[in-house]
């Protein structure tokens, strides 16, 4: 089949109805552009919200949970081995928050090829003293460098720098805490631990995550300072936080670590299942709207091609009389709609990018997200791929029916009908 000639004929037919062709292509352009802008924006938003969660939640966290022993003494008894035992009033057992043999576990984890990095942490409830008032809070002793690498905490430091924590006896407190206690950078804060130990720390920074509940209680200090405050040795670690290269494997990896290290392990998906749900629903909505827009554009193309066939009956008849088969005529009309779809779709990608850039530059300042200055956009090339594929698919389908009709036109009827 001579595709060059068929394309040539298709182009000439399009030129003859240039205005309608442009209207049809603009329909496709509009829907693709809207699709791209919508999906990019929605996913940008998803990424932002996911980031908010992931920047605080490790992919896998290892810790000791306070819980009842799974193996109660009666299970060891030979006598009741084959009986069903009912035990009442079991009390949970505190095996201590400290992770046993933490140094070895950390060094093993650091060698694991799936793991980006490991951040050990000491968490302890404390009281912040302001005059006679005590405000309860939490102190997090962190390994500053690995914590920064995994969770980008510097993004949330609104005053001071995170590396100042490397100095002895320094602390970064939450914005809510500093507002309540009228403290600012450079001041000294007094801390009482739950075991009654007192400490004075120098404030080197203020952090703001944007969630009031957290900003009101949270504080950061170095691992060594935290261990000193709670009066424990340098091997005292309460949490081991792990980020993985492939975060989707987190549940499986958490399970594996739970068994290997005999510790409690939780993955980020279990810890934050509501985020997953929100992201999925938003994605579905944006794709649904995009597909509807494209279907509407498809109907437009169908209409215009149908009209063109009625207008071009004579031309179709003469093409057939001079040796073009029904198949050739069908391909002429399919290429017509592919040309409209391709041209409209490519412009749609361009405009979609432009719309996305415009949204990306609209100021979006909110107290809860200190690092975000404009609306978030995800420029994933995948959306552009989906966009152009959808455009070609719908326009080809829309062109297929008129094309089949054109291929079945009987030239004798038209020539005779005159």
């Amino acid at each position, binding site marked *: 089949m*001579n595709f060059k*000639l068929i394309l*040539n*004929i298709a182009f*000439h*037919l399009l*030129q*003859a109805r240039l205005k309608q062709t442009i209207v049809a292509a603009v329909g496709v352009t509009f829907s693709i552009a809207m699709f791209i802008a919508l999906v990019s924006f929605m996913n940008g938003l998803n990424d932002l919200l996911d980031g908010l969660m992931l920047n605080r939640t490790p992919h896998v966290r290892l810790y000791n949970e306070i819980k009842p022993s799974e193996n109660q003494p009666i299970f060891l008894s030979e006598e009741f081995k084959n009986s069903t035992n009912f035990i009442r009033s079991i009390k949970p057992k505190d095996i201590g928050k400290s992770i046993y043999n933490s140094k070895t576990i950390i060094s093993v984890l650091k060698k694991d090829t799936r793991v980006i990095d490991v951040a050990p942490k000491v968490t302890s409830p404390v009281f912040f003293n302001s005059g006679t008032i005590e405000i309860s809070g939490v102190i997090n002793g962190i390994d500053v460098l690995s914590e920064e690498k995994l969770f980008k905490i510097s993004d949330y430091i609104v005053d001071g720098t995170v590396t100042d924590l490397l100095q002895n006896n320094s602390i970064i407190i939450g914005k809510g805490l500093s507002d309540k206690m009228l403290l600012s950078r450079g001041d000294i804060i007094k801390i009482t631990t739950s075991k009654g130990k007192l400490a004075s720390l120098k404030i080197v920074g203020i952090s703001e995550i944007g969630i009031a509940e957290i900003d009101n209680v949270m504080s950061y200090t170095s691992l060594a300072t935290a261990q000193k405050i709670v009066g424990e040795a340098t091997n005292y670690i309460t949490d081991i936080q792990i980020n993985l290269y492939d975060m989707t494997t987190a549940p499986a990896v958490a399970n594996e670590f739970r068994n290997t290290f005999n510790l409690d392990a939780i993955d980020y998906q279990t810890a934050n299942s509501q985020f997953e749900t929100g992201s999925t629903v938003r994605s579905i909505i944006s794709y649904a709207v995009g597909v509807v827009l494209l279907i509407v554009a498809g109907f437009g193309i169908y209409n215009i091609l149908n009209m063109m066939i009625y207008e071009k009956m*004579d*031309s179709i*008849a*003469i*093409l*057939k*009389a*001079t*040796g*073009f*088969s*029904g*198949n*050739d005529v069908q391909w002429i009309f399919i290429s017509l709609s592919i040309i409209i779809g391709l041209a409209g779709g490519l412009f749609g990608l361009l405009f979609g990018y432009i719309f996305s850039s415009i949204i990306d530059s609209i100021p979006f300042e909110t107290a809860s997200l200190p690092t975000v200055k404009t609306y978030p956009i995800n420029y994933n090339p995948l959306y552009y791929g989906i966009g152009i594929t959808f455009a070609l698919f719908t326009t080809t389908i829309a062109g297929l029916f008129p094309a089949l009709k054109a291929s079945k036109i*009987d*030239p*004798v009827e038209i*020539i*005779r009908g*005159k």
Partner: protein
Amino acid sequence: MENNVILETKGLSKYFYDPVKFQVLKEIEMRINYGEFVSIVGKSGCGKSTLLYLLSTMDTAYDGQIYIHNELVTGKTDRELALIRNEKIGFVFQFHYLLAEYNVLKNVMLPGMKLGKYSDQELENRAMKHLKTLDMEDQALKMPNQLSGGQKQRVAIARALINDPLIIMGDEPTGNLDKKNSDLVFDIFNRLTQEENQTLLVVTHDTDFANRTSRIITMEDGKIIS
């Protein structure tokens, strides 16, 4: 002698079913030899146009057989028939039927481009040569709607000639033209048979036109009577 037959029919019958079953063509047996200039005449409704459409392979719903150049064309696929029309048959219709989207030259070249036997450059030369013999070379770059009826018909003839067809079929080619242009078209056809030995089959009800052709087939009620 057998090789000289361009077109042959055997027991060709055709029915119309709408509104009632009606036999338009009754067991037509005919033969057209190489180089003949044949006209089919008959009253309106005698089936002469229907016969032409069957012979042209565009209408395939019939009983009997049609041979073009001793090759049975009955029962061939749409694609094969399209190729036969493209290569072996040239058409001239009552209403010129040029493509409004293309200029005169492209209209003439189009069947040749479809056949793909010659390069575009060669086709252009051939098209210009045909237009020149029809005295149309200065109109080559005009659009069809800028031409008069007679000029359009000459372009249609040039288009019919582009692939050196075995036979040119005309359906009332002069039906829409005045006397002067009719004569012009007849002269062109006549010259083609005389000089190029081109086979021609023309349906007409213009008796003046028919009387000047080399053979007249008269039809009545779906039968050839002479």
